[in-house]
């Protein structure tokens, strides 16, 4: 057992784990941060992707102890960080994934969204080809990647104030626009509760 001093999602955390535990094991089974997923056991699928000092890496091939002294961001950290920086709701990448239907089973997506977040941090206006390459270390079995790419492109377009390319099933429209609104604006006097 080794006492670990980690910085996870901006929190300084002290925990303990055996030397041979990976960061993924520490996150999931010590800290209860189960948003990072385990899919392949050994670095083949990308579901366990986290950001270490802003770079997407595989937590299943990172020893927990070697994460000391580095800033780790997991999927759980994106929304709080967005709120802290003055934003509203989830991170725009998370929002876009949800609005585009990119989350089917959702299991690969924490890793996928962190790869996407890192891409947009480094390159706010990636081409479709750049998006495909940046996400090529994250296997998704549900979507055929189409709605994932659309989600990243939607996030890019909205950040730039441009219109995203329409999907084939809704030509010449932006079907995701209507999904902007998440929380219903309730009319005055409607407490929404039980009287």
């Amino acid at each position: 057992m080794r006492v670990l001093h980690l910085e996870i999602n901006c929190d300084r955390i002290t925990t303990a784990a055996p030397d041979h535990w990976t960061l993924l094991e520490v996150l999931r089974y010590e800290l209860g941060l189960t948003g990072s997923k385990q899919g392949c056991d050994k670095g083949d699928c990308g579901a366990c992707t986290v950001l270490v000092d802003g770079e997407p890496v595989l937590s299943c091939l990172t020893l927990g102890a070697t994460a000391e002294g580095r800033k780790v961001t997991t999927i759980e950290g994106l929304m709080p960080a967005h709120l802290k920086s003055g934003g509203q709701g989830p991170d725009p990448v998370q929002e876009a994934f949800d609005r585009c239907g990119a989350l089917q089973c959702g299991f690969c997506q924490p890793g996928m969204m962190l790869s996407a977040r890192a891409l947009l941090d480094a390159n706010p206006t990636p081409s479709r080809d750049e998006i495909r390459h940046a996400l090529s270390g994250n296997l998704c079995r549900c979507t055929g990647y189409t709605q994932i790419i659309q989600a990243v492109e939607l996030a890019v377009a909205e950040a730039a104030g441009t219109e995203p390319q329409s999907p084939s099933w809704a030509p010449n429209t932006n079907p995701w626009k209507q999904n902007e609104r998440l929380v219903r604006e309730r009319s005055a006097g409607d407490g929404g509760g039980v009287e």
Partner: protein
Amino acid sequence: MAARDQHGPDAPWPDPATPEKNKFQVVGRAQRKIDGLDKATGRAVYTDDIQLPGMLHAKILRSPHAHARIVKIDASKALALDGVHAVITGADLPIKYGVIPWTPDENALALDKVRFIGDEVAAVAATSEEVANKATRLIEVEYELLDAFMDPVEALATKSPQIHETPKNPERGNVSKHVELEFGDVSAALEASDVTLAQDFRFHGTTHAPIEPHCAVAQVSPDGVLTLWSATQITHYVHRALARVLEKPASQIRVIQPALGGAFGGKSDPFALEFCVALLAERTGRPVKMLWTREEVFYAHRGRHPMQMHYHTGISKDGKLQAVDAKILIDGGSYSSFGLVTTYYSGQLLTGPYDFPNYRFNSTRVFTNKPPCGPKRGHGSVQPRFAFEVQLDELAEKIGMDPIELRRKNWQGADTKTVNGQRITSNGFHECLALVETASAWQERRGKLPHGRGLGVAGSMYISGTNYPVYPNDMPQAGIFLKADRSGLVTAFSGANDIGQGSSSVVRTIVAEELGLDPLDVRVVAADTDLCPVDLGAYSSRVTFMVGNATIDAARKLRKMVVGVVAKTWEINPRRVFMGSGEVFDLENRGQKISTREAFHLAETELDTLGTTGAYNTPKLGGDYRGGTIGASPAYSFTAHVVEVTVCTETGRITADNCWIAHDCGRALNPMLVAGQMEGSAYMGLAEANLEDHDVNRFGLHAGPSLLDYRIPTAVDTPELHALIVESLDPEGPYGAKEAGEGPLHPALPAISNAVYDAVGIRLRELPFTPGKVLSLLREKAEREASSTPQEVH
């Protein structure tokens, strides 16, 4: 169309003030999923995310032999290891089970024999996974080796040893299931056909590879109630199987499916880990979890059956199909799983979207000593569809007809019956063909692209659920409870398994539509056998159709209650009362309105606690012959693909550049989710064609049980997928909806093969389409052409 748009005898009445286009308030819009943000933020709880106080971890000892008798198991050393709490073996769970009640041939842990490398032999519960792993290695098993079969031809020819012994009928050998059916007079029709083709096709093994590995957690309360959380797509069948194997009243078992990380048919059998954690939890009095490694998921398999297929098809000169004669050998692997159904499906599901008057199929499923095959997306019908659609392309060429034209010409149409007696209602295949033809610029480009580039088409049909419940009963196939709360919230309790396809989102959409609610005021509790009415599970593409109809049923009952009370209060005809946009108002006096919440208060005051149930059962359908109900569905979906490929003649690599997917889903309740299913299906089909191969090596060992060696495509390996939705408005589907999750996989494989022919003139009849295979066919073609050149000179 408008008439068919109505559902049931008590149809919803649209607000006459809203234009026709917006007749629906929620249905037809690209809605977010009900669980999307939970998944996006890492909050969603999947099975392995569950941690219970005092929880033990279990692991399984697996067989290193492909076929062997178990002589002795000695677990004493494992039990003596510090941290080990229990060890169980086959003797502890002796009752056999199987998802199909007619073929129970599985034991949670091998009872007398092991049948493939990876078969489960013993299970250990310990304080940690590491201790459990260590303990499994301390279990000593003595085996007596038996001859193993890897080749279905050999397994069929050799009757002994039997992989599953049938002492009363040893002549059965290794046949798992045999089906032979003939409709019309095939031999005579083939004889009379202008043109016939008889060819062999081969389909390899492929697997689901959901990113989430199987996992189960069990806990037993002091009064004996067993709760199982499992990554399953069939909560109800797991519930039944647990009761059977554990000999425990089903009422004392609760099965819950947490968020699920993909399934595709790979989680639609009861699995060893579910029984093991349940028994281990009973034995130890502690919660027990078992999480399979990726390698173990490959052993659990239940993926696509390899098939060797022979198709003999006759056609008239003017392009009318006359007869189809199919003979299919199915490699079942080591257990039955859904194999009985697979064997029927391999023939029964070919009889659309084309009409042919004579049809015969002869399908034999054989046991082999490999991981068991089962239902993978497009169960049983993807393989024959591949063969048939490639053969159609060849027939079109033979008679000099455009392949799309040939398909159009043989389209069976709507409201008809197939040659094997299945009822076809809505059928949008014609429109599917038109859409992919236009979108791909087929007429301008097919046959005219430069050498190395080509377009290929293929079509398909698939079921929207099946009339045949897995166990015979006349109870509803799907059920829903609705609870209307004083807060204005409606909660739906749905037995359906949301495996990522969005079934709970569909329930929300329908409840919101029917009750005029904001979707955010509808919540869904799903896949918990204690809380939810029975649904049979997420398989056979049944959920939208069946659960959708059950939801409509429940929601209309609730609306009727609320509307009735409001009408009575306002002293008007109930038909004037409209529920929409979170309000209830008088259609003829729009100023007279209250919020839905207030309407719920009125109704609850008048009628007591507000809730309804809804159910769906299929009409009695199917051909009047043995097996005639297998493949019968209340509605069929239809798909057409055009795939554009580039073939590198030097490396043999096939690159799919574009895939246009036109799918008749009846009605798109949420077009974004429909498109997601279409794209995901097409992706999976393309991957099976070009990359994936699930096989064993010469030792019977899985050739590469990892996501490194089983190559599912990455984002850079996936073509541009263009989903084109066709709405045929099925008369019995919820608002006309049918399935979208499996049908759109089928045409991908034959469409690639046909596109490769257009590109470089070779016919790929054996999957997978490896570059080496392409090169060797190109060489054969070159040799053929070289040797035929002199003849052309004459």
